[in-house]
């Protein structure tokens, strides 16, 4: 098992060419880094790609640096998303590395990990190498690629995991599909001792979820739409946690949606299983009540669940039982969504709305503290061995500048993503990312904000 931490900057992107970057002074911002117990106004000095200094407000004067007046704004550790779908190769009409990474940069992310359920799936070393090369040409922020656990995502035979690791795969997943066969998962977890990379699991018992399009409960009863019971997720988590415990392996559980799933992860953690997990902004802010609209923008897998499930996820973010927030950014073309709900593709885009949606729906009403949200949004690299973004001097500059007073209608100005299937579209949100610094370089400036400082 690889234990040494990797830098975000070790991921591939077009900023990795080492060209010089002008120094930055972000003057007078409120700097919040809960891991370093920082919450105060500072001038943040970024020099040579590192956080060089957190100076007294108004005191930093750097020759030749770009100075950004950030009074009333927030500087946070940048976010890291361990779960995005960039549809490359195969469905570049829905997203490609450039548009997907632009969406991530606009959402305040300094790094993303792309899933392997492309067309064809990423299951050979050559696939990984080709994607990494493309990322070095196109990606606006550092990105990594997971490879499939099984060949062709068919769930039958393992991929050449060691060669995939050598080619630079960040981990393994058959995300989009569960690994139905417990014997195959066991073999993969045994083989992990050689390969040393985490395995991320989409947990769903396909027998229990068969025929379902939404959460099974009162709303599905009223709509007559086939239900996906919450136990289709939690029973598989329990199974896989038991296998991981038996093999002494490490697993990362993707997109928790249900109260029973939180309980399954908590009990595995309590017995010492090496298990981490994530939850999405949509599961933390919305419930299956939204599906009453029959709008396919609210269709995703796992489905939006009940209010009790949502509350359990929020509580698990607070307690740390859920390690991080991941968007499961899943672009789909409009013709896959402009169909009756049961026929529509599953998935929503989420990179550009993650912080504003969570800030508006959880922090503003006092449900979650800002520090807790920042911690969860920036922690996504940890299960995959990446160093956490930190704002203390000497660390690589991975930071985001946010205006929490800014109000906007999600999607009204269009999206950076090539797809538009957002479950927050049209919602009035508070909080907007103005600038993202990834691996020491400015990866994004919000248009109107960029004009202001030009």
């Amino acid at each position, binding site marked *: 098992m690889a234990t040494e931490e990797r830098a975000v900057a070790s991921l591939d992107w077009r900023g990795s060419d080492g060209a010089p970057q002008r120094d930055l002074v972000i003057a007078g911002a409120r700097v919040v880094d809960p891991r370093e117990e920082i919450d105060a106004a500072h001038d943040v000095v970024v020099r040579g790609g590192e956080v060089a200094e957190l100076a007294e407000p108004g005191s930093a004067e750097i020759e030749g640096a770009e100075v950004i007046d950030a009074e009333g704004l927030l500087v946070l550790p940048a976010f890291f998303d361990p779960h995005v779908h960039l549809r490359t190769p195969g469905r570049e009409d829905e997203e490609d590395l450039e548009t997907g990474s632009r969406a991530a940069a606009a959402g305040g992310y300094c790094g993303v990990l792309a899933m392997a359920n492309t067309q064809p799936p990423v299951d050979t070393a050559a696939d990984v190498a080709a994607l990494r090369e493309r990322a070095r040409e196109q990606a606006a922020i550092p990105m990594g690629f997971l490879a499939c656990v099984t060949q062709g995502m068919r769930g039958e035979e393992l991929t050449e995991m060691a060669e995939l690791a050598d080619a630079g795969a960040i981990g393994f997943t058959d995300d989009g599909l569960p690994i139905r066969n417990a014997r195959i998962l066991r073999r993969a977890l045994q083989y992990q001792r050689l390969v040393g990379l985490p395995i991320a699991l989409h947990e769903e018992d396909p027998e229990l979820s068969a025929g379902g399009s939404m959460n099974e409960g*009162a709303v599905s*009863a009223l*709509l*007559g739409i086939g239900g996906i019971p919450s136990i289709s997720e939690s029973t598989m988590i329990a199974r896989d946690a038991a296998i991981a415990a038996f093999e002494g392996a490490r697993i990362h559980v993707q997109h928790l949606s249900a109260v029973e799933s939180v309980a399954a992860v908590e009990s595995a953690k309590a017995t010492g299983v090496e298990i981490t997990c994530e939850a999405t902004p949509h599961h933390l802010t919305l419930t299956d009540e939204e599906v009453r609209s029959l709008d396919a923008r609210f269709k995703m897998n796992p489905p939006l669940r009940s209010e009790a499930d949502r509350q359990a996820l929020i509580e698990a973010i607070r307690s740390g039982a859920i390690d991080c927030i991941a968007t499961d950014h899943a672009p789909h073309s409009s013709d896959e969504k402009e169909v*009756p709900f*049961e026929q529509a593709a599953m998935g929503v885009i989420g990179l550009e709305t993650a912080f504003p949606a969570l800030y508006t729906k959880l922090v503003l009403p006092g449900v979650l503290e800002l520090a807790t949200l920042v911690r969860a949004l920036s922690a996504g690299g940890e299960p995959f061995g990446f160093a956490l973004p930190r704002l203390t001097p000497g660390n690589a500059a991975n930071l985001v500048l946010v205006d929490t007073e800014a109000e906007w209608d999600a999607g009204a100005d269009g999206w950076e993503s090539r797809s538009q299937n957002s479950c927050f579209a049209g919602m009035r949100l508070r909080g907007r990312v103005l600038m993202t610094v990834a691996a020491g370089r400015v990866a994004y400036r919000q248009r109107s904000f960029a004009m202001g400082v030009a």
Partner: protein
Amino acid sequence: MKHLLAIEDLERADIDRIMARARSFAEVGRRDIKKVPTLRGRTIVSLFYEASTRTSSSFELAAKRLSADVVSVKSSGSAVDKGESLKDTIATLSAYSPEAIIIRHPYAGAAQLVTAWTQAAVVNAGDGKHEHPSQALLDTYTLLERLDSLEGKRIWIVGDVLHSRVARSCALCFRMMGAEVTICGPPTLIPRDAAAALGVEVSYDLDALGEADVVYALRMQHERMGESFVPSLREYASHYQIDSRRLGHRQLLMHPGPVNRGVELSSEVIDGPASLITAQVESGLVVRMALLYELMAGGEPRASEAGADAEMPAPTPIGEPA
């Protein structure tokens, strides 16, 4: 009312108005010439993505009795067979400027989706397992012809509730009319949380069926056997079939059709004096006439009519302020 998509969208006053209108159309059916000129020159498209005998024929005849022009499109043998999307099919048919589109579709929400793509009034003739509002309205009409009111009446809906759009629409409609509704069937065919969702009582056996004023049996589909919802049709029939031993003398019997004789109903009750099954079909015609009237001739002028001028404004003479 702009569209008829779901009983859930209706208010009691809407239902009362449709019932009253249907009563006035009942008289038309007793004339020698069973036709009125009400919708002359109006176009109705009937678009059925699922097999249907009684609903499609009932809507078509209702439209013809109101003198509307009807175009019927079935999914087989049409462009739908060639993979055309619902959106494109609606765009094509909307080019004929129909005043109404009647649609049946195998998936929930299809009718609602269509409203975004057409100026026409949309009638949901069944969307997946979601709702079948015209069926619930004709059933309500049928009952009101026998009972003065549904207030306080006990209605049992028996059978495969999970897969039944009729059960959902009827439960909501009967409740809105003041009835107390019980749904009854094998536990595998009753949706989770149904009591809360539909505001009904739930029973897994027929022991208390005697309390019912009305027994509404649902069609039991053979394909459910393969999915382990019930072990056998024989066991289903032995536990849930409405027969002359279970049906009391004062209890009214209904079924949306088509009936599986010997499964959900025994032959003697289908043809018995308490059976309203044929009356339901008769009601279907007048209630659907009333619905088409409500959507096409009643209420406010339609957006498509008013919009004709708005889309092509008269040119502003040069030199005058726009």
